[in-house]
């Protein structure tokens, strides 16, 4: 896969992303705005996201409700902001889990090789035999839907991919001169792993992590669609789209507005991810 081949090397000048590129700036601005809204949600004077008003159901966007209301008359904007909090916690938490566990396993497997490698990567291959979403469904349905369990389940399904990237890059690093030099001056194995190898793995792992933030939001939405994310009435983006699906004919905006909101968010993440990937992917730059 292309991501696994991301090589670790100093960025070359010509392919470096233009940070003044307007699309990229917009993407960063949108994500910062969402982050600020999610953090300051309790103090924004929003209508309660769970307060139903059966006299104002499926309203189009207007002065009272900027982005309209859903089929129970709840304010869409408020639900999107509070739901965004769920998406962000899940995205950051699950990527952190995948990065930490997968990165560590891949590092150890690649560095020590032989049986350790075969054992760890064998387990990873078995995990990859399950379509990720099915593993997540099984875990969440057994443990019960909650932000913590959704984060953990998505984090677990991210582990094998991070492990593979970390291993592939460690393999290319472990026989390099600076690692040999560290060995010769008598550095301990943990020190070599943490101070010599790990810092060189980070570019590849982090640029993959950015992309996985978007994947995590999509996965949380898919679980929400199946009713396996936070419990109603607490809002989540996937749950909002799923529950308004039955109103698609009479009030398509009630579905489309949350869909567009989520789309813009994941698009921004992917846009930034693409730039980060270009920054570290020397292979594409030379083309």
């Amino acid at each position: 896969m292309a991501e696994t081949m991301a090589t670790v090397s100093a960025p070359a000048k010509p392919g470096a992303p233009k940070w003044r590129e307007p699309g990229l700036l917009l993407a960063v601005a949108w994500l910062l705005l969402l982050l600020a809204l999610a953090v300051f949600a309790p103090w924004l004077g929003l209508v309660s996201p769970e307060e139903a008003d059966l006299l104002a159901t499926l309203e189009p966007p207007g002065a009272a409700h900027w982005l309209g209301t859903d089929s129970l008359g709840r304010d869409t904007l408020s639900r999107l902001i509070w739901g965004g909090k769920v998406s962000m916690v899940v995205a950051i938490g699950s990527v952190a889990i995948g990065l930490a566990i997968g990165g560590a396993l891949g590092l150890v497997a690649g560095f020590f090789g032989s049986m350790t490698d075969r054992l760890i990567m064998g387990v990873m291959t078995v995990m990859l035999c399950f379509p990720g979403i099915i593993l997540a469904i099984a875990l969440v349905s057994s443990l019960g839907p909650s932000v913590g369990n959704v984060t953990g389940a998505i984090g677990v399904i991210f582990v094998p991919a991070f492990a593979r990237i970390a291993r592939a890059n460690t393999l290319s690093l472990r026989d390099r001169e600076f690692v040999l030099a560290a060995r010769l001056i008598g550095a301990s194995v943990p020190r070599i792993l943490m101070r010599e190898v790990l810092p060189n793995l980070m570019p590849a792992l982090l640029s993959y992590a950015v992309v996985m933030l978007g994947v995590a939001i999509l996965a949380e939405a898919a679980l929400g669609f199946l009713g396996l994310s936070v419990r109603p009435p607490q809002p989540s983006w996937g749950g909002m789209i799923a529950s308004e699906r039955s109103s698609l004919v009479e009030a398509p905006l009630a579905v489309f507005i949350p869909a567009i909101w989520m789309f813009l968010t994941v698009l921004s993440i992917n846009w930034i991810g693409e730039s980060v990937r270009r920054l570290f992917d020397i292979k594409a730059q030379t083309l």
Partner: protein
Amino acid sequence: MSSAFLRRLQVQVVTLLVILLAATALTFIITNVLPGDAAVAILGDNATPADIASLRTELGLDRNVVVRYVDWLSHALRGDLGKSYRTRENIATMIGDRLPVTLELILLTQLIALAFAVPAGILAAYRSRTKVDSALATVSIGLLSMPAFVKGILLIYLMSVLLGWFPASGFKSLSDGLGANLHSLALPAMTLALAEFPVYMRLLRADMISTLQQDYILVARAKGLSVREILLGHALRPSSLSLVTVVGINLGRLVGGAVIIETLFALPGIGQMLVNAVYQHDQFVIQGVVLVIATGFVLINLLVDLMYALIDPRVRISG
């Protein structure tokens, strides 16, 4: 068939068996160790502990996990996947009924995705770094930024609600005629294909760009071959290794996507069967479906590996 090839096959088959054992054991562990119990799920929350205990004995849930796994495995090896806790239906029969729906959906998805991705990938590579290329790149990032069910809902709105071309849900089997069958699968297959298209296109584009820089392409160009002959006759096959791999691997991954899409479009496939089984803690159904999916996944990997040899003669020699 060289001996290197046979040895490769041997290693693959052993790996396959080990992976299947591990995957089914892992499923057994997940469905057993995690909270949630088939007996409770069947009887409901109001059941007395005595009722639950007697049902657990009846279902064999009170035995040791390892004993139950070995028991299940020995039956599975003889083609007996047991019965559903819920409906008492034979699981092998249930899977036999539903698997064709999922397989057809996945096959159609791949066909649609490739039908668009191959020309688009070639075009993006040939016109790389032009407006066409960046337009295609933007479209593919956009498609990757939407979950499958949202794409599905958008397609339903566009093609079913507004245009009335396709049904919004439901499935017509082949016995209702091929036309009706394809008509009912069109929207779900398009939905899934929209997610595969960008992946395939980007892969082919990247490999094609590096192929086009090879010397033999220059030779072909110097000989005066047409662009068409160079792209399709000389460059496409050597550029399709990664594409074949990922198309193969995705057959397994698509089963995951099918779970959501079968739920959205009410298609009676194994994805929907699995979701329902998970909700109901119908352990042997989960176990059976996972076995089928994992077997399919591993067999496909084996097949992809053998396909390499057909596409790239160098693999045949190095083994």
